[in-house]
C-alpha cells in the first residue's frame, strides 16, 4: 500500500514534468521568435548562413564562371550525399589561380600537410531522415528547386525550410509520382 505522503509526493512529481516542459517551450518559442532573423517556424533554420573558414562564393564559381555543380559535387548523381569536394578538387585550379589570396594560401597549406578544411554544415536534416540526392536528381529535380538561386549566393544560406511539410508538399503532387510511404524517408 502506498502511504498518503507518497501519493502526494507522486502527484507533485507528476505535475513538475509537464510544468517545466510548458515553461521551457514557451520561453524558447518567445526567444526564438523575437531574436531570430530567420523565419518562420520554430526549429527550422531557413535563412541560416554561417561563417565558413574560407568565404567560398557560389556566385563567383557558378554564377560568374559557369561551373557545373557536379564538377565539385561529383558524387551527387550516384550517392545519397551531395559530397563536399575534397581539397584536391579545389587545388585542381587553385594551384595556379589566385595563389596570392590569403584564403587560398590557407587551403594550400592544409593541402600540403595532408589536412583538410572544417566547413560548417548549412543544410542539416534530423538523424531520422534519410534523404537521397541521387534519387531526386535522376528524377530530374534541379538543384535550385531545393537550394534556391545558389548561383547568386556569395555566402550560402538555407533557402527552403526543409520541414517535413515542405518535403511532402512536393511528394504529394500527382505529376511527381513520388512515394508517400513513411519509410521513404524514415527507417
Amino acid at each position: 500500500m502506498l502511504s498518503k505522503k507518497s501519493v502526494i509526493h507522486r502527484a507533485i512529481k507528476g505535475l513538475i514534468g509537464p510544468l517545466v516542459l510548458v515553461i521551457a517551450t514557451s520561453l524558447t518559442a518567445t526567444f526564438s521568435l523575437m531574436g531570430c532573423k530567420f523565419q518562420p517556424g520554430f526549429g527550422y533554420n531557413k535563412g541560416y548562413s554561417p561563417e565558413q573558414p574560407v568565404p567560398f562564393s557560389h556566385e563567383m564559381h557558378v554564377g560568374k564562371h559557369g561551373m557545373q555543380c557536379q564538377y565539385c559535387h561529383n558524387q551527387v548523381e550516384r550517392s545519397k550525399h551531395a559530397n563536399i569536394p575534397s581539397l584536391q578538387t579545389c587545388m585542381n585550379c587553385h594551384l595556379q589561380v589566385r595563389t596570392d589570396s590569403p584564403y587560398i594560401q590557407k587551403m594550400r597549406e592544409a593541402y600540403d600537410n595532408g589536412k583538410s578544411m572544417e566547413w560548417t554544415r548549412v543544410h542539416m536534416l534530423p538523424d531520422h531522415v534519410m534523404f537521397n540526392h541521387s534519387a531526386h536528381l535522376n528524377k530530374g529535380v534541379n538543384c535550385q528547386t531545393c537550394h534556391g538561386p545558389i548561383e547568386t549566393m556569395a555566402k550560402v544560406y538555407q533557402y527552403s525550410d526543409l520541414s517535413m511539410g515542405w518535403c511532402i508538399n512536393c511528394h504529394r503532387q500527382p505529376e511527381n509520382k513520388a512515394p508517400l510511404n513513411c519509410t521513404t524517408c524514415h527507417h
Partner: protein
Amino acid sequence: MSEIHNDEIKKTNRPVIEHDNTYWLSLENYNQDPEMKKLAETEFMSSPIREGEKQEPWARREFLKLMGASLALSTASCVRRPVQKIVPYSKQPEEVTLGIPNFYTSTYFDGQEAIGVLVKTREGRPIKIEGLESHPLSEGGTSVRAQASILSLYDPDRLTSPKKNLFNEKRTNKDTIGVKWEEADKAIVEELKKGDVVLLTGNYSSPATKALVSDFCEGFKAKHVSWEPFSYEDIKKGQELSYKNPVVPFYRFDKAKMIVSIDADFLGTWLMPTVFTKQFSKTRKDFAKMSRMVAFDSQYSLTGANSDIRVRIKPSQQLQVALALINELVFVQNKSIYAGNAKLKSWIGSFGNLAEGLLLEPALLKEVAKDLWENKGESLVVAGGMQAHSETAVALQLAVNFLNSILENDGKTVLSKPTILSVQSSHSEMASLIEDMKNKKVKTLVIHRSNPAYALTEKSEFLAALKNVNLVVYIGDRMDEMGQQAHYVLPENHALETWGDVEAVSGVYSIQQPTIRPMYDTQSAQLTLMNWAFQAKVGPKRIQEFETFYDYLRNYWRTELYPKLGKGGTFDAFWDGVLQAGFVGKLEDSSSARSYNVEVLETIKSLPKATGYEVVLYSTLQIGDGTGSNIAWLHELPDPITKIVWDNYVLVSLATANKLKAKEGQIIEVETNSVKLELPLHIQPGLHDDVMAVAVGYGRTHGGQVTNGIGKNAYNLAALDKKGILGTGSVAKVTVTEKKYELAQTQTHHSMEGRQIVIEATLKEYQNKKDHLIHKHPIWSYWSGHQYNGHKWGMAIDLNSCTGCSACMVACQSENNIPVVGKKYVIQGREMHWIRIDRYFTGTPENAETVFQPVMCQHCDNAPCETVCPVLATVHSSEGLNEMVYNRCVGTRYCSNNCPYKVRRFNWFHWTKKIEKPLHMALNPDVTVRMRGVMEKCTFCVQRIKEGKNKAKLEKRPLKDGEIKTACQTSCPTNAIVFGDMNDADSQVSKLFKNERTYALLEELNAKPAVHYQAKVRNTADLKGGGGHGHGEAAHGEGHNS
C-alpha cells in the same frame, strides 16, 4: 444481417483457444503450470524498474555507450545548435563514394572452419559481414561468430600498444608498463638467440603463415606446438590406426542419404558446422530423395535437434552404439565381406549383449543398420567432438571408420583427399610441452592465438610450469589470462585489419583482406616474427628480406601457388583475380577408397563401466571455446536449445532433477577428477538420466568487461595426460546446495497460448496427403483489403531447412543497430532481437524432439498493431510493409499488446546512448538509432529495399527478383529464408507461397501476414508430436466452422 451471420462473426472474432500440449516451449508449459500461464499473460513481465535501480555486476557492464550527440534544444539565440562540421577528404580515395558501401572479399577463420565472406565497409570502416555465395565451401552461409566478428574489431578492451609486465621474483604480482616495439623486439631477440625456443600457437589454416612459422623455427631452432581447447587428434589417431593415414578427412554430407552421428555435433560445433549445415540442407530439399539423419546424443545438440531420429545416450555408451551397429550389420543381418568372419565374430561376441542398456528399441537398431546398408556408398557415420573426448575416443573412431569402410563410404562421403587442414591442435603435444617446461628445457616461449592459461584445465599445472620459462612473450589482442602471465604482451591486428590466406580444406585457397587501417599501434603476429628473424639475421632469405607480411604472402603465392593454380597470364592478373573472387582452387569430389586395417578393431577390448552420473563437456555454437567471447551479441544470443542467455549451467534430465530433489535454477555442485564446480541447474528435456552436461567457454577472468565473470570455467573439469584430454565421461559426484540462481531464459516469453503454430509431418504423411497437410480456415472479413499496385513484399521461411543455428539473429542485430540489454532485462522480457527463433519441444520430456521457427514481424495486410496506434506511428505502406515511424512513436505500447505474434520490441532505456567508443563505429549509418520510449520491430530491411530499388532506377531497368535480400536471408546457411515481390508471379517467393506445405501463422485471425512458413517434414515412421492442424481432426475447437 441474419442471426446466423451474426453468430458466424462472433465465432470468427473469438475463436476458442485450444490448449493442447503437443508442442511446448518449456516444462512449465508442458505441465500447464498456472504460474507460467500468469506470466504469459503479462506483456513485459513486470512493471518498469528504473535503470540501475539495483546495481548488479552485470548491470554495471557498460557495453552500451553511444557518441553523445548533444541534442540540446536551441534556446534564445540565432546560433543553430548543434553546429555540425563537415571535413571532406584532403585527397579523395578513388574507391570511396560517400554513402555507398564497398565490399571486399575475405575469409573468416575461427580456429576450425573457414567461411568465405564479403566485408561491407562504409567510408573506410567495416560495418557488416556478408556470406560469399561463390565460395566453394560455405557457399554464402555464415555463422553467428562470423557475423559477430565485426564487433570484436571495435572491442574497447583491445590492447592499443605493446605492454611489458614487470613481475616480482616469484611471479605472483606484477606491474604493467607500456613499451616501444623497438625496445620489446630488441629484448626478445636477445633471449631468442639463446636457444630453447618454443612457439605455441593455435590452429593455423594459412599456408603462408605455416611457411613463415617453419622459417622461424628453422632460424631460431625453435619447436612449434599447436594447442587449442578443441582438438581433433582422436580423429587423426583413428585414421592413422585404421588406414595408416593420419589426416582429418573431409566429409560430404551433401552426398549422404543416411547419416548417423554419434555425438558429433556437425550442425553446431563439430569441425566445420557452417559448411556441413550447407551440405546437409541440400539433402533435405528434395523430398523424393530426402536424407535421413539419426543422432545419438549425450547432450541436447543442434544436430540432435535436427535429426529425424534422436536417441539419448550417455558418454560411456558411445562406443557401445558403434559396436552394436557393427554387430547388427555384419553379424545379425550378415552384410559386407566380414559377414562370415569367425575371428571378428568371436571378438564382438566377447562384449555380450551390445543392445543392453541402450535406450533404443531393437527394431530401431535394425532399421538404422538396414538403412545404412541400403544406402551404402551414400551413407555416413560420424563421431567425435568435445562430447566424445572420453577414454574411448580413439576406439570410437576405429569403430566408426570400420563402419564407413564396410559401407563403402570411404572415398565417397569420407574423403582422404581433400582433407581438413585447419585443425592441428594436439593435447598430447601440450602435455609434453608442460613436461619440458617443468624440466626447464624451455627458455623462451612465444605464444600466439592460444590461451592455455584460461582454457587448459588447472590440473595440467601449465601455469606452475610456466614459471620455469625465462621469457614468455604473448602475441594477442588483449591483456587476457595468458597476457597476465607473459613478460611481453604484443598486440596483434584484428583479422579485418590484416592480410592473410586460408586453406582450411586442401585445394581451396581463400584470401583474407584488410578492410581498415590498423586502428591502434598494433601489427600482425606474422610481421612480429619476421622482425625478430630480421633482427637476429637467422632463417631463410624470404623471412628476412620482406618488410611487411603482405610482401611475404604475395611472394609465397607467387612462388608456391601461382605455378600450381595460375592458368597462364601474369602473376599480377592472377593475384587480382584471387582478390576479386576471394578464393582460388576447387573441391575434389571423391578420393580412392583406402583399405581398413581390420586388426586394430580387436584392440578394443572392453566397454567402459558405467556407474553413476557422467560429466559431458560441450561447447555452444555462440561462445565456442570462449577465447573470443568478449562480444555482447554472442552472450545475448539465446542458446538454440535451452534459450538461456548470459550463463552456463548444468543440464540434467527431469527424472534426475526429481531424484536429486532439485529445482530449476538451484545450484548444484559437480565434483569430478577431484575438482568441484558449482553451477545452476537447468532441466533439459531429452537428456539421458545419468548425464550432467556443462558448456565450456564461460567463466573468463580477463577476457574483457563483457565476458568476465559470466558463468563458470568448466574446462577445469577435464583432465590432461599424454594420451590427450579427458573431457567427458568421467564420473561425477553431485551435491545439491540450498542456493538459488536465476537463469535468464527467453523461451518462456512470447507464449503462443497453445495454439498450433508449427506444422510438422512425416515424409510418408506428406507424400500421401499433400493437399490436406494444412488445415485451411474459413475466413470472413469486413474489409475489402489493401490494393498493392507496385511491389508487395513477402517472405517465405522453410521450417524444414531451418536448423536453428541463429546466424540470422546476429546478422539482424548487426544490420539494424539492435542494442543489447543484459541479463537483468532479458529476465524482464525486454530483449530487443527483431527476429527470434522459437524452439518447440514435442513428445514427452524424456524423448523430446525439437522444431525451430524463426519469427519476425509478419508485416500483416490487416495489421492489428496499425489500428490501435493513437499517433499513427505504425502505418501500412503501399508495398505491404508495416512501417514503424520512430519519430512519431510516443511509446504507448498498444501496438505490442495487440500484436498476435509478439514481435514488437520497446526501448525501455536509451540503450544505444551507452555504447562505449569505438563500438559505435559498428553501427549501420543507414538505420536510425532508436532512443528511449520508442517501439521498434523488423522492417524487412527496408533500407536494403530502398537501396535495391534506387539502384535499379539509376540503371534504368526493372528490379530483378532476388536482387534485394534481407540481412537474415543472406546470413542463412540453409537458404531457409526467401524474400521477394509477391506481385511478381515468377518470383521465387510467389512460387513458394503456392507450395502445398505453405501456411501462415494464426491464419484464422485474418491478419494476412506477408510471412509464410513451410511445414517441417521429418523422415521418420511416426512423429512424436503428431503434426499440426492437418492431423487429428478432433483437435478443432468449436471456433472453426469447417
